[in-house]
């Protein structure tokens, strides 16, 4: 049951007698059998914006994916139709599959870490004194509010090989191997830093959303469980977690979708001199194909793959939201 309906807000049919489609109240004969014009007029600007900024590029991308952009096209020749050549060429290239594998692993690791840590912090907020909780909430908000580019820049400073505070700290605790250690110049430690940045940026949203979900669990239920002798762990596994499961699954899904992106963070970290071909994610691969190598056909083919993957992954989330639109 959606909240709107619960509040008794009816679907309106302002200014026009046409009743809600299929509603039981459609009995009184409409005075005019005209369709409402107003809603269509109201949608015009939004639809035009979406057509210009999104729909047209998507269409253009479909066309580009079946065209060839080679050397001749850089000299002004119109691109030639090549059927599915771009797809077969790109998708038989093992470099693409290396990037896909890397993106998927990176995405899943980041999403899981984010949700696990976010859940832990949400449960922690529930358990601690109000003053500690408020401190934690404010700190999470500050981290969440950081613009992405500024956040990544700060992490580059923290992990600077010469004067970064992380290396200083590691040397202080006796790990002398980290003196002048360059985190961003080899793939494994590069992704370690990338994961830290992304998890740091994403946890606040997850923790605060889950905390909001946890506060919605009625205290009486937990009280009753306690009277029946349930331990803290039993309350967690049998009451709290099942009751926040809907929020938990949505948040996990959103994280997976968002972490599949990561173009910007990776690109900014690569500026510090990382081996580009070994640290590219899907977005970076597309950027390199299109912008650096002018292979717009290949870039379009990979883009379509990314869009299709996103739509597929987003479907459960979109369906949940659609249910809310009663």
């Amino acid at each position, binding site marked *: 049951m959606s909240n709107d309906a619960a509040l008794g807000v009816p679907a309106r049919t302002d200014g026009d007698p046409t009743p809600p489609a299929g509603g039981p109240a459609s009995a009184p004969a409409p005075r005019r059998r005209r369709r*409402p014009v107003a809603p269509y007029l109201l949608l015009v600007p939004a639809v035009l*914006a979406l057509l210009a900024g999104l729909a*047209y590029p998507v269409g253009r*991308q479909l066309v*580009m994916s079946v065209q060839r952009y080679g050397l001749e096209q850089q000299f002004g020749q119109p691109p030639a139709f090549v059927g599915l050549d771009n797809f077969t060429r790109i998708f038989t290239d093992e470099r693409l599959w290396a990037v896909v594998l890397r993106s998927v692993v990176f995405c899943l690791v980041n999403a899981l870490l984010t949700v696990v840590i976010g859940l832990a912090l949400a449960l922690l907020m529930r358990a601690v004194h109000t003053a500690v909780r408020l401190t934690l909430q*404010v700190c999470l908000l500050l981290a969440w509010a950081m*613009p992405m580019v500024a956040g990544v820049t700060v992490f580059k400073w923290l992990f600077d090989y010469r004067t970064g505070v992380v290396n200083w700290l590691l040397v202080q605790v006796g790990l002398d191997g980290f003196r002048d250690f360059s985190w961003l110049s080899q793939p494994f430690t590069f992704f370690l830093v990338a994961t830290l940045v992304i998890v740091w940026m994403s946890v606040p949203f997850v923790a605060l959303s889950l905390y909001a979900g946890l506060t919605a669990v009625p205290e009486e239920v937990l009280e009753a469980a306690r009277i029946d002798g349930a331990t803290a762990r039993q309350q967690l596994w049998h009451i709290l977690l099942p009751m926040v499961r809907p929020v938990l699954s949505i948040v996990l899904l959103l994280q997976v979708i968002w972490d599949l992106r990561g173009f910007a963070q990776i690109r900014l970290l690569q500026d510090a001199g990382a081996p580009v071909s070994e640290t590219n994610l899907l977005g970076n691969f597309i*950027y390199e194909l299109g*912008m650096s190598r002018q292979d717009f056909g290949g870039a379009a083919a990979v883009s379509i793959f990314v869009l299709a993957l996103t739509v597929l992954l987003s479907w459960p989330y979109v369906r949940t939201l659609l249910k809310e639109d009663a």
Partner: protein
Amino acid sequence: MSAVARAPRARRRARGLLLGTLGVVAALVWVFPVYWMVLSAFTPAAYLRASTPEFLPLHATTVNFSRVLEGGGFTSALRMSLAVTGITVVAVLAFAFLAALAISRWRFRGRRSFVLAVLLVQMLPAEGLFIAQYKMLSGVHLLDSVVGISVLYVAAVVPFTVWMLRGFVAGVPAELEEAAMVDGLSRTQAFLRITFPLLAPGLVASGVYAFLQAWNEFTVALVALPSQSSQTLPLWLREFLSASANRGVDWGQVMAASSLIAVPVIVFFLFVQGRMTSGLVSGAVKG
């Protein structure tokens, strides 16, 4: 507060202390990068290069900020960012408000398709579109122009804003308007005097959301604004760091530059975040 109701008091105290400590440590970990950015921005370069970092503002100075502002790049990027963000916010608010009005006050053919399209489109990643968007803008000679990138930003931000405003509009019962009309107001007057003021918080929240999106955006800007003279602030910050890297990064200045971008955003963000959290997960919470 829950948990071990019957455990001995001493054990419960110890547990509370442990959790409290954990909470404080987590808070410090999350706030540290923000603190470190602001602290470094106010620290002279000599102290930042010292072998032992200072964790408190013992030698605070504003020299890093004045160096950053002297460069001139900041002002031009600020102007660009303000123009793009301004256009985006105004257009998004107008377009999204009208669309939200349509889908929450009318039932019409095509409505469900529109809602579905809006929800689906807001999930699309910029990475899957930006090459085509680049080709489109270069085809109509709108690369490096405020108009070109604003069109892309408006299209990217409108979907979520429509969804967000829909909730606000649906929350104002149309009966209120009708009651005002019974009292002798025209439909327009009733809308302007009754409904509109009630929607103000929603419009403000949506406006701040659009502001944050346009102000922070990096990926699309990277392809749509290729030349240095048309950079927005995020692009400028990246450039500033790269330029500084050529002569051994002056992290104090870089952090001052980061702070200049981040501080207005943090202020706006704290203002709007409650609404954003509930908007994103409300479907799941209400189920």
